[in-house]
């Protein structure tokens, strides 16, 4: 039976990876690590009721025709979203001064958004990718 433990000796280890934007779940044998042969899980590995749980980051749900609905993101960033829209509209009318102003507002919103996303509610930080700040 495949295990999720990384230090299991001699047996199969369950693994995941992405290929062609699809999720691959399989197993490979640690003792033959050099060959890195990946196999599918078999009936010995899976019992009735077993589940795979995937944690992911996602896009915000698109707004529909219900005008009373709100974006899925926190309220303090809603005005920043409007800034991005106004930047686009300003550029369309060739008002590049206004477009620059709204772009600066939008970029500030993105910066604050990244800071918010990387901070937990107790004030400590998640692992922050410095290149994203």
């Amino acid at each position, binding site marked *: 039976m495949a295990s999720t433990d990384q230090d299991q000796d001699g047996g199969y280890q369950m693994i995941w990876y992405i290929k062609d934007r699809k*999720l691959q779940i399989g197993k490979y044998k640690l003792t033959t690590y050099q*060959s890195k042969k990946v196999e599918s899980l078999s009936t010995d590995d899976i019992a009735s009721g*077993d589940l795979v749980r995937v944690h992911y980051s996602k896009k915000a749900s698109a707004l529909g025709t219900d005008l009373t609905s709100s974006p899925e993101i926190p309220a303090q960033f809603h005005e920043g979203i409007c800034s991005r829209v106004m930047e686009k509209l300003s550029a369309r009318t060739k008002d590049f001064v206004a477009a620059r102003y709204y772009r600066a507002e939008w970029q500030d919103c993105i910066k604050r958004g990244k800071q918010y996303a990387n901070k937990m509610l107790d004030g400590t930080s998640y692992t922050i990718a410095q290149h994203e700040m």
Partner: protein
Amino acid sequence: MTQQQMIELIQESYPNVGETQMRLLINNALDEFSIETKMLSGHGTFTPVADQREYALTALSTISDADDVLEIKKIDFKDNSESTDRPIPRFSGMIYNEDTT
């Protein structure tokens, strides 16, 4: 802010832009914001199938469009005989010998 409030705020400066066009631009900006900040997260489950390697992201109970998933952070295996989720390690590196079953 509701969608109505956002549209009215924008229409103060751009009164000639219609509601449908405005909604399209707001949704595009929301997508950009989500991609840049990766602020929103979620999780979903699917039932693993013997002898099946590949699963579309839409197999997840919470995902209807695979493009909505920006990044997979962690995957757990929930053994029905236990009450805890155990993380599955992500495979990194080259797969030299992969059968396609």
